[in-house]
């Protein structure tokens, strides 16, 4: 099937119905592996058992940025190609992105208290991630404020692309400024600095979280398509009632 065929919402719904059982099974399997490995992973020589927080903090941090990246691509789809599913994809991803960004902030605070002696500092990494969370809330609020989905989609797309400027700031904040947060230790040109006994569970959990996002996103997109059908039918019903 050519990729462009997926632009048809009915075809997307049919594909989602076939894909979702497999995605759910793959997500559950990945979490069983990831959590199993996280439980038996050794303690860090400096951080002790608190390193286990990393197995949920890093995947949620990755997803918080990845999802905004997906929304930015969808925003281009809305503004440049007017792809029928682009703003459906963006709107459906925003609450999921907000959830994972909130999880990143909470787990970071809970990790910071025993390691840094504080739940929060206004340094570049933490503040830029907080800004990302507020931008997610802003996009969600914009979608809820504008009633017409196509107008809301264009406005949200512009806000999303403006907000994408924050992604490199988050990524390089630990290099550009002095922060309490440690520098990159996984996604580095020179390779990861983490020992394989901790890196393998971390990768397994990252795959599990990413599969969870894909499953939630496909489900939320399916819901959004149904919501738009409901809206169309309600408008038709109102037109019939007005003409009767």
């Amino acid at each position: 099937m050519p990729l462009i065929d997926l632009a048809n919402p009915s075809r997307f719904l049919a594909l989602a119905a076939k894909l979702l059982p497999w995605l759910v099974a793959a997500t559950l399997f990945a979490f069983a592996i990831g959590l199993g490995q996280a439980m038996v992973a050794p303690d860090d020589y400096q951080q002790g058992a608190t390193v286990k927080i990393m197995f949920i903090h890093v995947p949620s941090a990755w997803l918080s940025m990845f999802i905004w990246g997906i929304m930015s691509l969808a925003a281009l789809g809305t503004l440049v190609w007017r792809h029928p599913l682009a703003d459906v994809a963006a709107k459906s991803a925003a609450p999921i992105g907000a959830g994972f960004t909130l999880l990143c902030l909470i787990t970071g605070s809970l990790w910071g208290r025993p390691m840094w002696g504080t739940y929060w500092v206004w340094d570049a990494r933490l503040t830029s991630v907080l800004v990302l969370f507020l931008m997610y809330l802003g996009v969600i609020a914009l979608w809820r404020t504008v009633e017409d989905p196509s107008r809301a989609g264009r406005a949200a797309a512009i806000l999303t692309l403006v907000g994408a400027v924050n992604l490199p700031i988050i990524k390089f904040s630990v290099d550009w400024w002095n922060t309490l947060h440690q520098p990159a230790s996984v996604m580095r040109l020179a390779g990861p600095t983490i020992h394989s006994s901790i890196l393998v569970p971390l990768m397994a959990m990252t795959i599990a979280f990413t599969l969870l996002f894909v499953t939630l996103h496909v489900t939320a997109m399916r819901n959004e398509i149904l919501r738009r059908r409901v809206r169309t039918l309600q408008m038709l019903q109102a037109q019939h009632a007005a003409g009767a």
Partner: protein
Amino acid sequence: MDLGPHAAFIVAAYAAAALIVASLIGWVVLDHRAQRRVLGDLEARGVTRRSNERTEQA
């Protein structure tokens, strides 16, 4: 499994993860049921899309 002196922070972090993931799953499942129910009600009242009407006439 010994979580050491900071066990409360580790347990709280995993509990927060479970709560947020459960909330997201609950949101998509309940939203799907709600949309299906409203769509079913509208179709039961005979409200259909024009594309459906054209398909039925053909």
